[in-house]
């Protein structure tokens, strides 16, 4: 067990008759995936550092339904959505932040039609706003001048037109950002979306994550920066498949900011 971090739940807040500034939606990957849990913790450290009054749903959180919907199971999606909306509305949630672009997209775009209206932010957007408000300082630290490429998550980029927030944060980290040929609106998918994460790929001549990792490696990066737990897994696997795991790390932007401050 590493150092204990304080993570209040919405239930605890309610018991004390308080409402937090923002609900941190952890997501399934952030809760259960070993790699993604590190991102979750890094983000929590940043929230504490910026003195953000936040809470999580904890055991009351459930899958947003994104993979079910993208797999074609609208029933399961809507059951998940309505259950989550009931919980969030009961806690009178106004603002949600999440480190997963899939959760972000679903809650932001697909929940309103089912009665869930919240201000939803991706963690890179939220961190950027903390930065702008002067609540969080981002400095290069150990990343200053490092060669880094950023892989755009489809559900943050093309799906929601957010290309700048993660890049602004990287700029503040004073890294040398090297763009891949396919970036921003033309960024290549990591291969996990549309419920592909949970199945073997259809027959082809290459795995999508290997194709994308190879492209990232052509920029000769020290770090491939990601902003999605699923992209992170796919790119990490890609780096392993190309036997570069000794040279290139795949890191979430939140982890980089936390590490830069030795949090």
């Amino acid at each position, binding site marked *: 067990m590493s150092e204990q971090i304080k993570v209040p739940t919405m239930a605890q807040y309610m018991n004390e008759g308080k409402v937090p500034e923002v609900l941190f939606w952890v997501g399934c990957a952030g809760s*259960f995936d070993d790699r993604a849990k590190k991102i*979750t913790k890094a983000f929590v450290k940043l929230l504490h550092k910026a003195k953000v009054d936040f809470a999580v749903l904890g*055991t009351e959180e459930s899958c947003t339904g994104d993979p079910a919907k*993208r*797999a074609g199971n609208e029933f399961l999606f809507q059951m998940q959505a309505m259950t989550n909306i009931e919980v969030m509305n009961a806690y009178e949630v106004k603002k949600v932040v999440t480190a997963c672009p899939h959760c972000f997209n679903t809650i932001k775009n697909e929940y309103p039609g089912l009665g869930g209206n919240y201000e939803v932010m991706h963690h890179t957007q939220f961190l950027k706003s903390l930065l702008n408000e002067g609540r969080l300082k981002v400095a290069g630290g150990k990343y200053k001048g490092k060669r880094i490429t950023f892989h755009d998550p*489809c559900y943050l980029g093309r*799906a929601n037109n957010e290309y700048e927030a993660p890049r602004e944060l990287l700029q503040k980290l004073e890294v040398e950002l090297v763009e891949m040929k396919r970036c921003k609106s033309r960024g290549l998918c990591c*291969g996990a979306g549309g419920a592909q994460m949970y199945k073997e790929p*259809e027959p082809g001549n290459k795995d999508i994550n290997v194709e994308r990792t190879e492209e990232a490696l052509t920029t000769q990066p020290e770090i491939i920066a990601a902003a999605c737990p699923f992209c992170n897994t796919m790119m990490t696997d890609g780096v392993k498949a190309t036997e570069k795991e000794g040279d290139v790390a795949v890191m979430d932007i939140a982890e980089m900011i936390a590490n830069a401050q030795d949090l």
Partner: protein
Amino acid sequence: MLAYLPNFLFALILIAGVGCFARNIKKVIRNIKLGRAVNYGDNNKQRWSNMARIALGQSKMVVRPISGMLHIVVYLGFVIINIEVLEIIIDGLLGTHRIFAFMGGFYDVLIATFEYLALLVLIGVIVFWLRRNVQRIKRFLSPEMKGWPKNDANIILYFEVVLMCLFLTMNAADLQLQQLGSAYYVAAGNFPISSFIAPIFDGMSEASLIIVERTCWWLHIVGILIFLNYLYFSKHLHILLAFPNTFYGRLTPKGEFANLEAVTNEVKLMMDPNADPFAAPDPDASEEPPVKFGASDVLDLSTTQLLNAYTCTECGRCTSECPANQTGKKLSPRKIMMDTRDRLQEVGKNIDANGTFVDDGKQLLGDYISHEEIWACTTCNACVEACPISIDPLSIIMDMRQYLVMEQSAAPTELNGAMTNIENNGAPWPYNQMDRLNWVDE
């Protein structure tokens, strides 16, 4: 009376050409309306602006600079040279020659502009042909481009070459006749390009020149009418449908997939603690047939999706950006659109023959589009982003997934596993929901 024969003949050809075209366009509209009606809301301002920017302004074409610039040249040429067609039609009907010549200096500018554009179009079209047939760019060589689609693309280019050559040759002969002072040929216009062609006709008699000029004139206008009627059978319908298609294109974020209303009603009923599961159906409720979830055939798709299919000009930008296609999977978003159109045409012919659609034992899913294609998609929206005229192949893929999962229970096994996990423990993996906060203490 005989003097008016050409006018009659012209009017006849014009009416036949435009009439035939109108009949086929009606068929296209009827077929599109076979789709489910869509409520487009009242965002007309945004829609007009999208149309102006994306279709008229070609804003998404230039994402790929070379083909984009060439396309703009051909597009501008096409649109502007049509002013000349207006003069040709009036001349044909009235038996006049260069009726706009009274504009004087402005007419000279017009004709000169047409000539420059005609040359640019010619160059553009030749480069397009080279890209397809000599440079052999990958997106033009996909399996779905074999046979008719390949020929169709080349036929369009040949048409344009022939039309532009006829136009310039006609002007060259006209210029010679003007210089000879031929009675019918008023000295009008400025011919910066065809003046280079004119010397070919040096020494030709006035009669022969008139034959050349008239032949080119007639072939040019008849060629345009044939081309107009060719559109219906071709991918080239995009020159018209790009406008309505960008108008009706999506206004919501690309990540937002529509929630199925029929499902919402059922889920609400399921989750309502006061709902009586044994209640008799409401006798006042209209006798609606049970809703079919998702799409297995074109009739299950929306009018927007069917309009998309007719609009697609098979450029393949979607397919070349598709991560599944780039890694050798069978999925090609362009093929999804081509299949949808082919099947819609088949259904349309079925209706033409039988008065109403008679089950032919076929459907879009299975007979045209395979399950393998449908399951290869990562829903990354690269195809939607890439389309220069707002076509959405992803929405058709999603509708078919819904049909496969909700009507056929035919999801890939591993996905069924993930979905069972979501249903039972609220995560796609087999972890207990009660362990969701364990990461804090790890």
